[in-house]
């Protein structure tokens, strides 16, 4: 049944209320179960043996001693994973990343795995596996990897996007160009041109919960997987494809997820757990250590970016260009492409060109990290914007307002914008009380904008009305940040019942049709839309039941505030029937009442944010303290304001950590030096101030409630906001993220 997705500008009864989330009690009492919290009778413990080398041929793997160790029930290597990929390169990359096939491609790449009766035995077994490696030359830096002299990671890669098509192997998997106009003409018109190169180091999503799963797989090809994931349906499809299983025979249940941010959209060791389970014919529990998470899951790219922007004395930008180089780890990705698409998206430009390169190197396979690729591009662009504003002696916010994209602007990535929110967020920043706060000695203020796409996707929900009128809503989008509360609010709003009457569950893969992964800020947007339609579907059923009860045509029945009413003077004697009453009668009026909806949600809209940041930098130590931070972002409609604020604050905090401290440090030998939370330093409670938020609500015309995605955009501006703030505080332009104390001190020193 088709439903209208257009925004209806209706008045809300419960939407927008700050209600308690339904899974709150479980989470504050320790009852909620995450990936490592499930166990099965007879389960084995799985452990993975990983390459200590950045790049090496695997000449031989001798598992004989390990097999003889009492308590070891199964061992697998690359040979245990036949090729079911049917020539699909992307699937093969995933398979090879889960378990090396003849060559170790990065420090931490899986080369073998065991399942044993306990962790101790499994660890002993790993020590008994003898791997004969032949070390190969390696490369870990993105710019080094692009040089013709660099060791090639995969000899089958030919750079796509270049004419004529190259015939020799390269680490550059693709080149993408976006833009319009003629930048030579544009730069010729400029009175001032600023050109600079920036570097950002690799960071990890840093979720506190390591990857974990409990897998069973029988000889008949049917199995179960309990796993922490952002998309259990996607994981099911992936595991089934890689292992040659029937999708319907693999039931995947998503545990509660302890953080994902894009890093749990991809399988890293789940197929290995399933294969161990199949080989041993016992359940296998496989949990990654923190070190494994850093070394062998999907961090984001490290990058090197050149930005050039020109403007006239009156403050209008005449041309902008960027070359962005992103490393994707040991397998191809499209991260440089995304960076090129987002770099100038905030601005109204007549002449613009951005070129993105995707580069392979001997590092783990890069995965999405919250608005992937956008933060690094924004760091470069927003820094140059500030430099230009300073050169033109213009206020940085005014300069941005003067050049902000608006309806009718051709986006730097191609299409013409409809109504967008960059202008409003900048105006809100301009008028925000934060801007009036006095700055003291060694303090500096920075502002920055950010852009991100939001997505919809395949969504399927079930809404069932119990005999007592309680409502069970089953959705397929994993709840990463509290969306269960928002979805319950939406169901309650549509049905006209109390919020507490609705219970939301995340269904497993056997309970619902396919649901896409919770990424791209789509959770509330997509499942919310499907919930609205499922509720309307159920309302249609209830109206029919009321009509039947009254013996009148259903066209004379309306649903208002949770009750069915009979319209018309001839029906004025009929008292309204509440949802509870209709539900109670349902066994005799036609059976269970349910609403169902499959929708491909789309048109989630693009998102803009503007941040303001004040920092204080200690000139003796280079240490930076964030004193004040404000996030302004458009949410379309905040279903549950607490959780929208939470997304703004969380994204900002990750961006702050990225800007000031977080980085992957590789040694000369290509191995990761800081694979733990001690030396990979994410922000702690004492590092941050309260983070102020302002939610703008400019309705998305493609959603009945005007909802936009919100989860990702807030990580885009912080690198630049902090970069601008620190640069203002120390009087030197910072071009290398993270701006850790040694880097700041060096920058100050170099300038003197």
């Amino acid at each position, binding site marked *: 049944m088709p439903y209208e997705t257009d925004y209806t500008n209706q008045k809300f009864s419960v939407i927008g209320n700050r209600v308690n989330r339904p899974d*709150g009690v479980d989470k504050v009492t320790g009852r909620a179960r995450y990936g490592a919290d499930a166990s099965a009778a007879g389960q084995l413990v799985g452990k993975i043996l990983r390459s200590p080398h950045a790049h090496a041929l695997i000449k031989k793997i001798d598992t004989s001693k390990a097999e003889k160790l009492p308590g070891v029930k199964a061992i697998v290597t690359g040979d245990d994973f036949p090729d079911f990929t049917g020539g699909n390169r992307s699937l093969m990359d995933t398979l090879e990343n889960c378990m090396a096939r003849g060559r170790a491609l990065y420090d931490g790449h899986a080369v073998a795995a065991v399942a044993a009766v306990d962790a101790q035995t499994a660890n002993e077994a790993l020590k008994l596996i003898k791997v004969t490696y032949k070390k190969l030359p390696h490369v870990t830096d993105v710019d080094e990897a692009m040089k013709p002299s660099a060791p090639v990671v995969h000899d089958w890669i030919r750079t796509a996007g270049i004419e004529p098509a190259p015939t020799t192997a390269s680490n550059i998997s693709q080149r993408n160009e976006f833009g319009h106009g003629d930048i030579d003409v544009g730069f010729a018109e400029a009175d001032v041109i600023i050109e600079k190169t920036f570097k950002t180091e690799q960071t990890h999503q840093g*979720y506190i919960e390591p990857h974990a799963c409990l897998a069973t797989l029988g000889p008949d090809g049917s199995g179960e997987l309990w796993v922490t994931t952002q998309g259990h349906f996607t994981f099911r499809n992936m595991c089934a494809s890689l292992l040659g299983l029937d999708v319907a025979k693999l039931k995947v249940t998503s545990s509660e997820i302890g953080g994902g941010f894009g890093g749990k959209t991809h399988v890293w060791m789940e197929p290995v757990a399933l294969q161990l389970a199949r080989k041993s014919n016992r359940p296998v529990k496989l949990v990654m250590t923190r070190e494994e998470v850093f070394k062998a899951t999907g961090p984001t790219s490290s990058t090197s970016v050149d930005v050039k922007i020109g403007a006239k004395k009156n403050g209008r930008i005449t041309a902008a260009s960027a070359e962005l180089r992103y490393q994707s780890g040991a397998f191809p990705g499209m991260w440089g492409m995304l960076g090129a698409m987002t770099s100038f998206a905030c601005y109204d430009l007549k002449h613009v060109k951005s070129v993105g390169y995707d580069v392979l190197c001997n590092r783990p396979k890069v995965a999405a990290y919250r608005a992937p690729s956008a933060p690094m591009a924004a760091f470069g662009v927003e820094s140059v914007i500030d430099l230009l504003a300073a050169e033109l002696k213009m206020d940085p916010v005014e300069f941005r307002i003067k050049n902000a994209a608006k309806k009718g602007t051709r986006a730097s990535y191609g299409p013409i914008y409809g109504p967008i929110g960059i202008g409003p967020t900048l105006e809100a920043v301009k008028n925000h009380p934060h801007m009036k706060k006095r700055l003291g000695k060694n303090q500096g203020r920075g502002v920055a904008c950010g852009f991100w796409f939001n997505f919809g996707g395949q969504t399927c929900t079930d809404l069932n009305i119990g005999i007592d009128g309680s409502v069970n809503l089953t959705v397929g989008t994993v709840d990463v940040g509290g969306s269960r509360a928002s979805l319950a609010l939406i169901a309650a709003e549509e049905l006209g019942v109390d919020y507490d009457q609705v219970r939301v569950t995340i269904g497993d893969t056997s309970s619902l049709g396919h649901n896409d992964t919770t990424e791209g800020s789509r959770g509330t947007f997509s499942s919310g839309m499907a919930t609205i339609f499922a509720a309307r579907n159920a309302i249609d059923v209830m109206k029919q039941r009321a009509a039947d009860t009254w013996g009148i045509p259903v066209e004379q029945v309306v649903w208002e505030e949770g009750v069915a009413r009979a319209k018309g003077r001839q029906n004025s004697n009929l008292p309204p029937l509440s949802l509870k009453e209709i539900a109670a009668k349902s066994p005799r009026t036609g059976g269970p009442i349910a609403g169902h909806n499959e929708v491909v949600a789309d048109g989630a809209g693009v998102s803009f944010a503007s941040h303001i940041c004040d920092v204080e930098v200690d000139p003796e130590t280079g240490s930076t303290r964030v004193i004040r931070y404000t996030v302004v972002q458009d949410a379309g409609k905040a279903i549950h304001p607490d959780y929208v604020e939470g997304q703004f604050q969380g994204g900002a905090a990750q961006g702050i950590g990225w800007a000031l401290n977080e980085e992957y440090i590789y040694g000369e030998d290509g191995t990761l030096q800081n694979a733990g939370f001690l030396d990979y330093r994410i922000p702690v409670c004492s590092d941050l101030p309260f983070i102020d938020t302002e939610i703008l609500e400019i309705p998305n015309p493609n959603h009945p409630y005007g909802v936009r995605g919100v989860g990702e955009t807030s990580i885009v501006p912080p690198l630049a906001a902090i970069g601008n703030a620190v640069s203002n505080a120390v009087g030197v332009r910072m071009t290398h993220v993270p701006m850790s104390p040694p880097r700041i001190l060096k920058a100050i020193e170099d300038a003197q």
Partner: protein
Amino acid sequence: MSGVTVSAKVNGDAVQYVCPPNESLMDVLRNRLNLTGVKEGCGTGDCGACSVTLDDRLVCSCLVLGAEAEGRSIGTVEGISQDGELHPLQTAFIDHAALQCGICTPGFLVAAKSLLGRNPNPSEEEIRYALAGNLCRCTGYDKIVRAVQSAAKVMRKQKKS
């Protein structure tokens, strides 16, 4: 490897378990006593997700041996609510939306309860430094600090009456 027999108290209840000498208290609590509220985030004492109290002292259970708990009293998140009633900290965390994914929440609750037990009226700075041993990646700590401030207020009022 022979096991060590340990008698201890967990959340007020007497327990007994046998574990290898090198097994952490965290693994004992999670795998032998089924108290999965204790979470392993790093295994090296850097994230605080495994926080418990050991004779009222806040510790990372991944850095304590199961054998070291002999004769001692352990407090986990499962013991924070009393007689089926949520503790003011638990209520405050829910009310203030101080959790998103919730994985760090048990550790924060144990740490916050330990703080308020020592300092019933902490300043914002004192709260932030006392909780600096607990990592959260979702919230940016803003609502967590507000929840602790709010719970502290409630607890001070309760004590008065």
